């Protein structure tokens, strides 16, 4: 029998429906794979008992021909999603013993459709980071290595565990969240597909909040088609989240393989940053050629506000984080450090419970929202955000269907290599991804090639609001041309 963990989600789904193997056999294969890969530190909690119980239920449903869209498919869940009765920490010490009594809407949708929970995946603490190094459980080690090197590389972040787990074959798909690039950047670093849907497409209810006007849930998987299948289940209206839209969810899988003839693809000149690596430029050019060969037209466009997106993000996101994270006070849940009075208890709890990067961002957010600085920082950043969105709206009004750009300025870097002295060095990782969050637009990262050292690189497509279908169609063309990439197994 073939190695079940090497199948794509669509292949596994079809084989389960044909009863070529059982959900129990599939889940056992993944449980074993996760056990063998603990050196990667991708899972912060494995839930094999629950997985086996869910697989048994799936097998019973499949036997009756009543399987749901994801029946029996084993998934990893970013530890930012609340899972009822299963510890959920946001990879922060402040939530290290938190067991939610409720289920996030997105994971509830996945279980409704028959998916199986394999465990909770590592991420940067409260999703604040681009390398998965800020997790209180320690960094995730990428399954990828540079050719001829044993140096440990980062998987990207903040959804680093999700990207690494899919790339290493530890789950058939995974969930992530993307606030400034936290799905697309790790997807690019790990050679897998990652989708950040339009803001409002997926409910945020039950997902630990970082920056509420930017956060959005999305899938990771081996292929564009697999992500389409996952997103269809994850998305949809939710009365518990007033920012979640009341729009019907299309059958995204239908868009995979659809013609892209006549589509107009914008190539934003402002993304051609000074000092950009030649291989990133070549990858970008190759991607444009692939889309042209499939009948699309590429057009140079201008998004003049691009360079201001990252600085504006580093005001808006910390400001919202400082407000969202005010709830961690040692009273209702999470860690408590006793103090002589209530203020000392708050201060001691938050100093001990939050890691360095989280403390830094909460303080920046507090500062930019404080009396006398609100207009100069927060209000100005929100005005710049309006202008960033206008840039895209103008292009879309002129007939552009999607924007093509590299996902990241470089391939993955070594653990401990970046951001030690200067936090900005790490923040610059998100320079190409953050605009989509600021404008609320959908984005997809598709593996598109390897760099000279054998590490994966991704191309990103950003689309019109609620037009994820176009991204799936375009992404499939790139995937078809580029092929798929898997790391050589060393663990």
């Amino acid at each position: 029998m073939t190695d079940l963990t090497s199948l794509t989600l669509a292949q596994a789904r079809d084989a389960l429906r044909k009863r070529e193997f059982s959900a129990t056999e599939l889940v056992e294969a993944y449980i074993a794979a996760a056990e063998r890969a603990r050196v990667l530190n991708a899972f912060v909690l494995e839930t094999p008992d629950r997985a086996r119980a869910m697989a048994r239920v799936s097998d019973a449903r499949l036997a009756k021909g009543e399987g749901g869209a994801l029946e029996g498919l084993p998934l990893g869940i970013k530890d930012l999603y609340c899972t009822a009765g299963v510890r959920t920490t946001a990879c922060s010490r402040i939530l290290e013993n938190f067991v939610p009594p409720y289920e996030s809407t997105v994971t509830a949708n996945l279980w409704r459709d028959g998916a199986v929970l394999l465990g909770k995946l590592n991420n940067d603490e409260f999703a604040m980071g681009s390398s998965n190094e800020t997790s209180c459980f320690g960094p995730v080690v990428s399954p990828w290595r540079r050719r001829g090197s044993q140096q440990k590389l980062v998987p990207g972040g903040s959804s680093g565990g999700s990207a690494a787990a899919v790339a290493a074959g530890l789950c058939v798909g995974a969930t992530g969240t993307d606030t400034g690039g936290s799905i697309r950047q790790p997807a690019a670093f790990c050679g897998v597909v990652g989708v950040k849907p339009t803001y409002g497409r997926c409910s945020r209810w039950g997902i630990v909040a970082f920056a509420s006007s930017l956060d959005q849930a999305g899938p990771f998987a081996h292929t564009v088609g697999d992500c389409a299948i996952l997103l269809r289940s994850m998305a949809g209206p939710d009365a518990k989240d007033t920012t979640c839209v009341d729009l019907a969810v299309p059958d995204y899988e239908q868009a995979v393989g659809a013609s892209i003839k006549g589509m107009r693809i914008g190539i934003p000149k402002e993304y051609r940053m000074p000092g950009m690596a030649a291989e990133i430029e070549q990858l970008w050019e190759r991607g444009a050629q692939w889309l042209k060969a499939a009948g699309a037209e590429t057009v140079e466009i201008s998004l003049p506000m691009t360079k201001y997106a990252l600085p504006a993000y580093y005001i808006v996101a910390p400001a919202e984080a400082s407000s969202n994270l005010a709830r961690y006070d040692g009273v209702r849940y999470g860690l408590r450090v006793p103090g002589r009075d209530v203020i000392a208890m708050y201060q001691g709890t938050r100093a001990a419970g939050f890691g360095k990067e989280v403390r830094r961002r909460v303080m920046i957010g507090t500062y930019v929202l404080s009396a006398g600085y609100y207009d100069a920082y927060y209000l100005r950043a929100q005005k710049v955000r309006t202008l960033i969105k206008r840039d895209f709206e103008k292009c879309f009004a002129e007939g552009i269907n999607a924007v093509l750009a590299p996902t990241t300025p470089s391939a993955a870097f070594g653990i401990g290599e970046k951001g030690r002295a200067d936090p900005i060095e790490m923040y610059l990782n998100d320079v190409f991804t953050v605009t989509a969050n600021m404008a609320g637009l959908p984005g997809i990262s598709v593996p598109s090639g390897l760099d000279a050292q054998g590490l994966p690189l991704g191309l990103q497509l950003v689309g019109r609001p609620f037009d994820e279908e176009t991204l799936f169609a375009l992404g499939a063309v790139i995937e078809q041309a580029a092929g798929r990439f898997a790391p050589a197994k060393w663990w």
Partner: protein
Amino acid sequence: MSVDADTVRHVARLARIAVKDDEVEPLRGELNAILAFVEQLGEVNVEGVEPMTSVTPMAMKMRQDDVTDGGIADEVLQNAPTRDDHFFVVPKVVE
């Protein structure tokens, strides 16, 4: 704009995060690096631009003002670090 050590201590107090004396100086440097980075927003002409309040144009959803949940005090309190019956316990707040 840049912050001095007193401002770092003030912001930490507002954020309810205890900061040790030897943490103030490194924090001051890091916060100033971030503030210097965001300074470039000053170049943008935002005259007459509305600040963004909602990234997707949508009307606030309305719902019936009905009680749909409740009676789950045990669940609400289940993660409390310290509780007494159906109450959260905190240090004395009022003298």
